[in-house]
């Protein structure tokens, strides 16, 4: 699980005691600070400089064209004797110079430098559609899903999700799983058409025909392939074979749009079997919990 995290905020101050930033400079500066992972507030008054009622959300840095004279707020925004924010006069500095000020003060507050951060790719459940059937929990091999103490489906381990893989959204019979950064609707959160619902329904029917479990099919194919591989002991061919099986699986079950990297890095046959059994058990437990709560 990812621990709750507060990211320091940068305020670009353009109130009474600072000259306005030049328009394209402001735009570029905001973009660069956002790309570094920090929220930015454009403030035109001192109101934005301290947020005493919201610990943790106070700005860490206030940048402005102060022309050598910091605003009165620079002295007054403090808690227990500690300044809430560091005020920096950026008059006359170019973009690079301002960014080095930001980096120097804030770089240690984020986990990874920009460009190396985790791409936040994970399933988001539309609870207005979800029926808590637990198919997603049974399907996912990477423990992304779990259940709350009262048996409700929950996305618990976002960072375990395989980047750019939307496969679980395809197994949800209610079209309730979104990936906001996915290219197309309705997975990206776009409105759901009756066609989408019909298509998802068909997919489940296909999956039911295959024994109700896409991974069971995957396992069978892997098992067949594996017995061949053990004879051939040829890793490259084994990989190609796995890819071929998965491609076939894709065309049988519909385009799952699973990236090739994810397909080729799927766990071994044994691991898949163990994981799938564990996931199924967890789903069954959650459903039992739910049922027990209903009868109470």
């Amino acid at each position, binding site marked *: *699980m*990812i621990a*709750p*995290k*507060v*990211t320091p905020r940068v305020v670009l101050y353009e109130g009474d005691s600072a000259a306005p*930033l030049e*328009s*394209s400079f*402001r*735009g570029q500066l*905001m*973009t660069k600070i*956002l*790309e*570094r*992972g*920090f*929220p*930015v*507030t*454009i*403030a*035109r*008054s001192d*109101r934005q400089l301290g947020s005493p009622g*919201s610990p*943790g*959300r106070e700005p860490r840095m206030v940048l402005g064209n102060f022309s050598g004279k910091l605003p009165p707020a620079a002295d007054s925004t403090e808690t227990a004797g500690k300044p809430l924010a560091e005020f920096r006069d950026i008059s006359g500095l170019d973009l690079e110079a301002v960014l080095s000020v930001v980096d120097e003060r804030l770089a240690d507050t984020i986990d990874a430098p920009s460009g190396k*951060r*985790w*791409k*936040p*790719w*994970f399933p*988001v*459940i*539309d*609870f*207005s559609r979800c029926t808590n059937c637990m198919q997603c929990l049974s399907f996912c091999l990477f423990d992304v899903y*779990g259940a*709350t*103490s*009262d048996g*409700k489906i*929950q*996305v*618990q381990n*976002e*960072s375990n999700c395989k980047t750019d893989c939307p496969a679980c959204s395809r197994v949800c019979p209610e079209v309730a799983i*979104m990936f*906001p*950064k*996915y*290219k197309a*609707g309705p997975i*990206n*959160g*776009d*409105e759901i058409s009756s066609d989408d619902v019909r298509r998802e329904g068909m997919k489940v029917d296909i999956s039911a025909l295959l024994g109700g479990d896409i991974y069971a099919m995957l396992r069978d194919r892997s098992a067949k392939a594996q017995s061949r591989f053990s004879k051939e002991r040829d890793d490259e061919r084994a990989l190609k074979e796995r890819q071929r099986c998965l491609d076939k699986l894709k065309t049988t079950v519909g385009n799952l749009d699973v990236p090739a990297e994810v397909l080729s890095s799927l766990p071994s046959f044994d691991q898949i079997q163990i994981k799938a059994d564990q996931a199924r058990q967890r789903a069954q437990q959650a459903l039992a919990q739910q049922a027990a709560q209903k009868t109470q």
Partner: protein
Amino acid sequence: MSDQPRILYCHCAFAQVIPKDVKQGVLEQLGAAGIEFDCVPDLCEMSANRDPLLQQIAENPDIRIAACYPRAVHGLFVAAGQPLPLAGPEIINMRTLNAAETMEALMKPREASAGIQIHENEFLETSDVGADRT
């Protein structure tokens, strides 16, 4: 209450789902509009991080959020245990609007938008779903 709801802009990092020129155009025009506003690097990341800022946003229904599909944005707040109020917040979708259209939706006077919900949301009471992850 000011004439304008507070504006929150999501920069949608890591993915090209919102065209660069839309993001750039909106940021620049917001900056030039002489108003106060907030920008976040990526609402998805904040949802995964359970960032306390989401709580502050959710507590203020007088807000316009420039991000992506309203269903996705609502889902992200629910996932973080901080569902947005059913009435009030307006979500402007930069995946389907260009910079000028986004700005128009963000800047229109309160009266013009009163009663108009960009997205008819029907989210259930799900505040317990995202909060405590075990």
